[in-house]
């Protein structure tokens, strides 16, 4: 009997440890699942709660809701230390660095929107403050995309890059960033 119990404990422990430590799922409680992939060292990302996670120096993740491309991604960003965080849309996790995309750098020195490696805009007045939560909403709608920081639309752009399912987030070097209130929803349903 003792052996059976030991076996079961080991079996459950192994289930918990899991064989894909680079994958995670958020929002399991409200069924609006967000699937995540840790693209950096595992130790640079810490999934804390059902919809919050911490990125440490160089922490790099890709999040998506499968098959949802017209998406609105909502984050509360709290930069604990360092420069800031980078968001990418219209890109994919596979060979990310080779793929064109739209990047939104949100840092203490200001913000910028970069498309296909070229600066679209630099927003000096939109900057992060250390340990002060900021709500960032990025939405894709057909060929348009919106970036909203604390309820202000800071950039509305148009692109011919195809929509993808991914929102990719990377902590800038030597930055610790807490992401909470994470959700990815359907832009069209939201607008209706």
């Amino acid at each position, binding site marked *: 009997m003792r052996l059976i119990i030991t076996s079961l404990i080991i079996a459950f422990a192994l289930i918990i440890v899991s064989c894909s430590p680079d994958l995670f799922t958020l929002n399991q409680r409200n069924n609006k699942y967000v699937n995540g992939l840790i693209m950096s060292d595992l130790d640079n990302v810490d999934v804390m709660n059902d919809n919050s996670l911490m990125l440490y120096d160089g922490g790099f993740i890709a999040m998506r809701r499968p098959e949802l491309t017209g998406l609105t991604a909502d984050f509360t960003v709290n930069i604990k230390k360092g420069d800031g965080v980078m968001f990418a849309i219209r890109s994919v996790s*596979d060979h990310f660095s080779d793929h064109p995309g739209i990047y939104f750098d949100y840092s203490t020195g200001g913000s910028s929107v970069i498309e296909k490696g070229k600066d679209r805009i630099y927003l000096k007045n939109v900057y992060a403050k250390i340990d002060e939560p900021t709500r960032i909403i990025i939405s894709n709608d057909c060929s348009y995309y919106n970036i909203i920081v604390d309820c202000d639309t800071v950039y509305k752009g148009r692109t011919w890059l195809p*929509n993808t399912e991914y929102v990719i987030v990377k902590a800038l070097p030597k930055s610790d960033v807490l992401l909470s209130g994470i959700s990815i929803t359907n832009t069209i349903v939201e607008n209706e």
Partner: protein
Amino acid sequence: MRKFLLWLIFAIAVSSQFWGCGTYSRTETDVYTISEMDTTTTYSGRNAPGNRDNGIIYSSSRTVKADRNFIQRDSTVNREYPNFIRLGLFESIGLITGRANPAGTGMFGIFPDFNNLKTTYRGSSNRIFSGGIYRLGIGEWRLRWFRDAKDWTYGTTALEIIMPDALTENALASIAPLYVRKRFYLREQIPYIALTGALGIGYFPSQYLNLTASIDIGSIGGLNVRGYLGIAAGTNPRNSPQVLMSPQNDSTSTTTVFPYLGIGISFLDFLNRVPELDREWKDHEHSSWDVGLMQLSLINSGSRSIYKKDSSFTLLTGYILKLANAYVALPLLNYKLYAGTSLCELMVLGNKEWGMGILPLRMGYWQTVIADELSVEPFIEYNYYPSSYVNLGARLNLKVNDGINIGIIAGYASGSTFGGIGTELTNQLGNPGNFSRAYIGVTLGLFDRIFFKEQLRYFR
């Protein structure tokens, strides 16, 4: 019996946690939504026949119509990646342990005297390779610990047998032993060269630890050669199959501790480095013209058939069976020359005219006739143990799919069969002798993949 069941439950419970991890392939799917906006402008003019009144201004009949279209479509991309560090069919290691009662397993542990493959055999003197390690069904997956330290893996094998000598009760065996390995790559190009440290735990039916260091060369065409240094220590409980099968069955548990040196070879054993796990299957590098599990040829050599006891005519007189083949392209003659081998080969030309070869040496020339379909390969093959014969021939291969091919084979084989084959085969095929025969037949490759020029890494 109760203890046996408990151990079985334990083994299943532990190993079952890795069944899901043990996939060999993973699929990733991305969806892209492409938005396309288009405006069609139509210009039309409808002039009434006849003259117009000139001298006055009046509106043109030309009309302009603009239609704006917006199309959105999804594009789904599926990508297939390997999901293992190592996946292998069979590994065999010849061990030098310096113990009394050596088994004489031969180089790589696969050249035994077949007459001695029985549990009553208690060893002979003057044998260098006194034991062996045999692994069937090997799998290794990435282990991400110590801050994602490089090249750690965990793995298992369906069955592992560690044999220090000929004594059955000393052989350690386990179903699904757990191994943790760390590799240090000395060469990061194919064929890889790595120093590997490993710790293994076997728990059923033997309980043992196996600590090894090895130098690994491979894989190329699924072939690997390894040199081992290690120590194994373990116990066979008194109700374990090894103790029960031993002729010296005194129903007492045995404990074995022994250091060893070993030389091993493995077949259909494929190794990926971590970066290769992010390379799609279709982009993977291949080095061989043919890698496969089995090639079976049904042949007619004009000799007396093995299928009939009388000497009446039969269409088929025998067969050629090759297991675990690899034909590795050589950098000669535009990589069309290849060197190949198999784990074993059984060539049965007819009754009492047959031979068997382990690790035969094969050299051939691979010529593609129709791309991705048809190829021809003249070859010469030398089998040296336990039979000695030369096989000269040619095979025409038609690829059916990635795992199956069919073809025609013709050739000439000449040689003789030594003793030491064992009674299992001689009872069935007759006592072997000398043979020299031409043959022709049809061939079938199962789980046997033929590669074409554009798939080999040398032509990319």
